[in-house]
């Protein structure tokens, strides 16, 4: 077979490749470059000074705290969901999968709004919480709840197809040989899914630390108290503190680059492409 008949002409191929690379550079690479350049525009000293602010340190700490609660909770639940959906057939199984993926199709702002409707001053449980002296909205618990909602599907969605592909033969063998259910899970299942699990946790964490819309609704925007890093970026940007805003943004960009690098590594370990970072 003549190769030319099933391929584009060399000149066409070259042109299309150049257009593609130009698109990728202008649309996807330039935003990343501009963040780093703007952060360093006043020199390294300004970067250090911007990160040495008490409000910046508080924002970094709060971001870590929120992720440290939301990610493990969603990991445990994602493992449970993957076990019952990936290992058993039952009525309503596909409906359950659809419901688990639901937060992906909800606007970030709506993901924050729902918590205000429940726990805000005019929320269903708002007056009750106020009498009890508990604050959820405009406080850290609200940030955690909104982040948990947004990152809910990541671990389950990564693990379910993986566990379906692997089948149950190894686990059944372990059980037949006298292992308990827990032993089987820890010794057989967990090692088999470890790269996939790590991949899910990685995506969950990246989104938890970078979430903006959902936490913007529930935060109350008090510097040093209820501002995660993305919210702090917004406050600095609105105050025309460009170096400050882009310095914190650069820090989050490094997290994004780390996530992309780990994605490559884990795809290689899993021996397959896991698809988009969804």
């Amino acid at each position, binding site marked *: *077979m003549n190769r030319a*008949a*099933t391929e584009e002409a060399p000149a066409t191929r070259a042109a*299309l*490749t150049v257009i*593609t*690379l130009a*698109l*990728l550079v202008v649309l*996807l690479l*330039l*935003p*990343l470059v*501009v963040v780093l350049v*703007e952060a360093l525009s006043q020199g390294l000293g300004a970067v250090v000074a911007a990160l040495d602010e008490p409000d910046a340190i508080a924002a970094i700490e709060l971001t870590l705290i929120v992720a440290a609660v939301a990610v493990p909770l969603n990991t445990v*639940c994602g493992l*449970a*969901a993957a076990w*019952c*959906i990936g*290992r*058993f*057939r*039952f009525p309503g199984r596909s409906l359950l999968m659809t*419901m*688990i993926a639901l937060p992906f*199709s*909800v*606007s*970030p*702002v*709506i993901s924050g*709004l*729902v*918590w205000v*409707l429940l726990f805000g*001053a*005019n929320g269903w449980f708002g007056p009750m919480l106020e009498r009890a002296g508990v604050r959820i909205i405009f406080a850290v618990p609200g940030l955690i709840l909104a982040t948990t909602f947004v990152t*809910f599907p990541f671990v389950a969605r990564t693990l379910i197809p993986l566990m379906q592909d692997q089948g*149950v033969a190894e686990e059944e063998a372990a059980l037949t040989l006298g292992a308990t*259910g827990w032993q089987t*899970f820890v010794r057989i299942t967990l090692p088999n899914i470890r790269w996939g699990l790590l991949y899910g946790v990685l995506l969950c964490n*990246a989104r938890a630390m*970078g*979430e903006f*819309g959902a936490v*913007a609704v529930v935060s109350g925007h008090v510097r040093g108290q209820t501002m995660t890093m*993305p919210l702090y*970026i*917004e406050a600095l*940007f609105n105050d025309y503190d460009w170096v400050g805003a882009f310095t914190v*943004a650069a820090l*989050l960009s490094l997290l*994004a680059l780390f*996530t*992309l690098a780990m*994605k490559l590594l884990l795809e290689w370990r899993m021996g397959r492409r896991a*698809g*988009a970072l*969804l």
Partner: protein
Amino acid sequence: MIAGARKSALPGFGATLGITMVWLSLIVLIPLAALVLRPWELGIAGFWHSITDPRVLAALRLSFGAATLAAAVNVPFGLLIAWVMVRYRFPGRGLADSLIDMPLALPTAVAGIALTALFAPNGWIGALFAPLGIKIAYTPLGILLALIFVGLPFVVRTIEPVIMDLPAEAEEAAATLGATRTQTLRRVVLPALGPALLAGFGAALARGVGEYGSVIFIAGNMPMFTEIAPLLIIIRLEQLDYAGAAALGLVMLMVSFGILLLLNLLERRVGRRAA
């Protein structure tokens, strides 16, 4: 019913299903129930009044219009990028492929201020257009651009696996039968990609409608001009108009789901015709 349905010898079905249902209810279902129920505190007439306010209609038109346009732009862009990535080999291809995921990995607030810095009248790219009288940031054009940025990976990643799975025989047969390369691409390849193109369009559209972080900095946020629907939800919450905020949120969600359902049906029809 559920006990009878389990066919596996493995343990732990009841416990894991229990954990999943409790977590799903607490984190997803009960909060979404509030979104579905609270708008009706206004009564049906009040609900209608709340969502047909001219400012709301302008915001909804902008959010859905810009998201549709951005998704439409991303279809040819995404098709081109996916084709080149799958079919061609060139230096730096692996790096370019990682770059495609950038909008999903980069936090939206970071993307938002970065795009604003690039496309503001004094920005790297904005300054090239300013002398021509074209303003990008703080106009609907800026919103469109931000939505093209966030939507692109959805289209590329939906199309790529379908291009990989295209049977080589179909293209070879067409070529053997005397079709030119352009004819083969138009008559054989493009129809086979139809459903994936629609699915990618839908995913980008759904993301774009609700997008907040990457849009809000570049939009300018002028009521009736560059004010997106998610921002209006926040404004209503600040006015303690919870029912009004929920009404707008519910309408956005329902329209999005309606569009996705429609695209899904269309996708199946296109898929059948191609097969």
